[in-house]
């Protein structure tokens, strides 16, 4: 007898499950949660940690003084700064200036240590998330634009 009652229960529970799936099948247009990705773009939040970027203003100037605080704070060694002391024409003093701020995205774990360590706010999080490339050397980026220099009001 339990054989038949189990068959009955089997059909009952099966229909119970189908009630959920068919509810969504019939009302398919109401609760769409999927995004047709390349055409529809998802909303990227302001705090999203995509990659480290260095914002430049309209005069091609950034706020990085080359203090290397980010390089020391990074646990993975994904930031390398190549710097030199350059003679300032006006004051006649030598000042530390960055040549290249190299950022290895392939080694970065998005831990925010560099951005919290930066005293001048020169580097911030960018919201770019499409990082796939065909060659891994493309993941090594130089953050400062060619020919850029430090903003005059930034003190180190």
């Amino acid at each position, binding site marked *: 007898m339990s054989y038949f009652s*189990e068959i009955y*229960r*089997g059909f009952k*529970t*099966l229909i*119970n*499950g189908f*009630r*959920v*799936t068919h509810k969504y099948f019939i009302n398919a247009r109401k609760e769409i*949660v999927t995004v047709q990705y390349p055409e529809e773009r998802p909303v990227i*939040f302001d*705090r*999203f*940690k995509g990659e480290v970027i260095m914002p430049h203003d309209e005069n091609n100037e950034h706020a990085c003084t080359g203090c290397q605080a980010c390089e020391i*704070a990074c*646990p993975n060694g994904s930031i390398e700064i190549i710097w030199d002391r350059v003679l300032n024409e006006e004051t006649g003093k030598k000042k530390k200036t960055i040549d290249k701020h190299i950022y290895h995205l392939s080694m970065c*774990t*998005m*831990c*925010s*240590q560099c951005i*919290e360590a930066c005293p001048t706010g020169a580097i911030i*999080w960018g919201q770019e998330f499409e990082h796939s490339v065909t060659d891994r050397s493309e993941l090594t980026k130089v953050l400062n634009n060619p020919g850029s220099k430090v903003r005059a009001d930034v003190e180190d």
Partner: protein
Amino acid sequence: MDYEAQIKKNQFRTEEYKINMGPQHPATHGVLRLNLTIDGEIIKRVEPDLGYIHRGIEKMCEYDSYPQIIHLTDRMDYLSSHNNNEAVALAIEKALEIEVSDRVKYIRTIVGELTRLASHQLWWGVMGMDLGALTSYFYGFRDREVINDIFEETCGARLTMNYSIPGGIRYDIHKNFVQRVKDFIVHFRSKLPEYDQLLTGNIIFEKRMKGVGILSKEDAISYGVSGPVARASGVKSDIRKIKPYSAFAVQDIDFKEPIYTEGDAYSRYKVRIDEMWESMRIIEQLVDNIPEGNIKEPTKAVIKLPKGEFYQRVETARGELGVYINSDGKKSPYRMKFRSPGFSNLSALEDMAVGSKLGDLVAMMATLDLVVPDIDR
């Protein structure tokens, strides 16, 4: 007629043989290799073989400063990454004798419970998929996506949040956070009964889960099993009740610890479903009265812990996570040890599996909720 008698009657000569399950097996959820000794379909021995995703996180911690350690713990049990961050942050705060504000404690607990919900939703989805019901996968991930958006808006990442730091939290909560959490609770309270409707009462599911992989209370205690696996065997093991931390120590939060006594796969399933209801109750009690306060207590630029040993345990989605720091007064720990819940839970697998069929092993592993990077740090 049972199997052994049938062999005797038919004069079969059977041999034990070994097969590998994993490291690339869809039901092991990662690179876990099981050396199985089987006789026909009957499991004789199960030897988990670890080391495929060993990154040496404990050793790496010895060379990193304390704030740098936090992001490594995200990568251990990536499904309850906030709880891992919280454990390390609490251990360091205990050593430095910092008392964080109530606001930090409340936010940590809310985010921690959301992490637990997200982890259990993913577990529910992939458990159904392991047993052959692909539908549950989509339903679990649909609801988890809402939590992931909350995390992304407040913490900046969807999975490895890296949000608790020694002395507080990294950012204050986003202005939409409270409203989004409330919306999620309303949403998920209407969706969680669907989970029951789809799987819990289903006869095929019950036949595969009930009486499978029984772990007795004595064995659960002796293996050091914790979390939902221990609760299904009747062991009270919730750290939130035994040794309250964060907001559990501040406010008397009303929540139950679901206890089942059968110890089989089905009761482990039921414990996790009940935990989702309880987590929602905890969040509801906290989210409306987040107090004002500092989000970060000032710490020195280079954090140096005093000499000594410090231990802190928290309840992650998988069980009890212990963080042990042995400091010699320098800026990085002398020894760091994580007592991960998954490792102890996996050790009970052989006890459960011996004598049962090969197909049931998948159900056992699914209800143990293994995360291999947590087992193999």
